[in-house]
């Protein structure tokens, strides 16, 4: 699993390097690649199902982890594409992963792309809010992108105040907004360095 993940990361980096100015295209290419990669993985998993329960559970965990890597596209900017069904347990894992990534990459903006999410329940909605707030406590702004009309409606019905969330229609818009925020932040870090001299 480790080798597979390393390979995915390596490929992600190469794809990103090839599209330094167009992160959305990079992401689209990465997604297409992953569809093929996971088909192979599914064949391997079938063989393993014959094994003991604990082993299966652990490997399912690993696959779920793999399906949501964080991508570092620019300095200080993380993209977290959420692919697949979100249950309460996985949502919590995603939060932990994201927050660790914020620390590891000193990220100031995180774009959480929900294009791959078709339904949310109240538990997941709460997790989303909590993730956004936890990111803020670590000094990072979260931008949510790719909310379908259905999911947006569910969130509103569940009592989520969408105006409290930073949302953009699509990933590209989210990245642009992020770069705007980061451009502003860069100038202040510069100013701080001058003052410290």
């Amino acid at each position, binding site marked *: 699993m480790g080798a597979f993940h390393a390979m995915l990361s390596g490929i992600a980096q190469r794809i990103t390097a090839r599209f330094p100015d167009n992160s959305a295209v990079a992401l689209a290419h990465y997604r297409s690649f992953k569809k093929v990669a996971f088909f192979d993985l599914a064949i391997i998993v079938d063989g393993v199902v014959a094994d003991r329960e604990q082993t299966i559970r652990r490997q399912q965990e690993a696959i779920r982890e793999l399906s949501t890597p964080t991508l570092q596209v620019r300095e200080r900017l993380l993209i977290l594409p959420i692919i697949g069904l979100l249950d309460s347990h996985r949502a*919590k894992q995603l939060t*932990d992963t994201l927050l660790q990534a914020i620390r590891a990459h000193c990220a100031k903006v995180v774009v959480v792309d929900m294009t791959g999410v078709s339904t949310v329940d109240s538990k997941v909605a709460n997790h989303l809010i909590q993730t956004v707030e936890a990111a803020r406590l670590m000094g990072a702004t979260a931008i949510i992108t790719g909310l379908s009309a259905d999911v947006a409606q569910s969130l509103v019905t569940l009592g989520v105040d969408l105006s409290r969330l930073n949302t953009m229609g699509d990933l590209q818009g989210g990245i642009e907004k992020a770069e705007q925020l980061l451009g502003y932040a860069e100038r202040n870090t510069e100013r701080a360095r001058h003052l410290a001299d």
Partner: protein
Amino acid sequence: MMATEARVDIARDIDIVTARQHGRELAGRIGFTGSDPTLIATAISEVARNIIVYSGHGEIRLEMIAGSGREGLLVVASDDGPGIPDVDLAMRDGFSTGNSLGIGLPGARRLMDEFEILSEMGKGTTITMRKWRR
């Protein structure tokens, strides 16, 4: 054989730190991962402080437990203080009003999987909490 249980006497504020450190350590040994050890330590901190603030003296007992094929941690916070006159009021969530004064016990409940509170006027209070590994 490693200890599967710990008892901490709660009388001074330094004991709050001791109790939560024991909690974190035991949680780690039980196999809790991610943010769970911190959530557990935080819940212990809340109930330990509750003992000091409302009673002055008590005890926190931590125990490794098992049930339905998984392991977990049991936390029992007990004191022989005056008791809580209105448990419902004490457990009313200050969450929605953002009032951190009301956050202690309801907060601990949110961090753990199971939470029971038993209080008798003049006898004391016992809070029992459990968290299970996934």
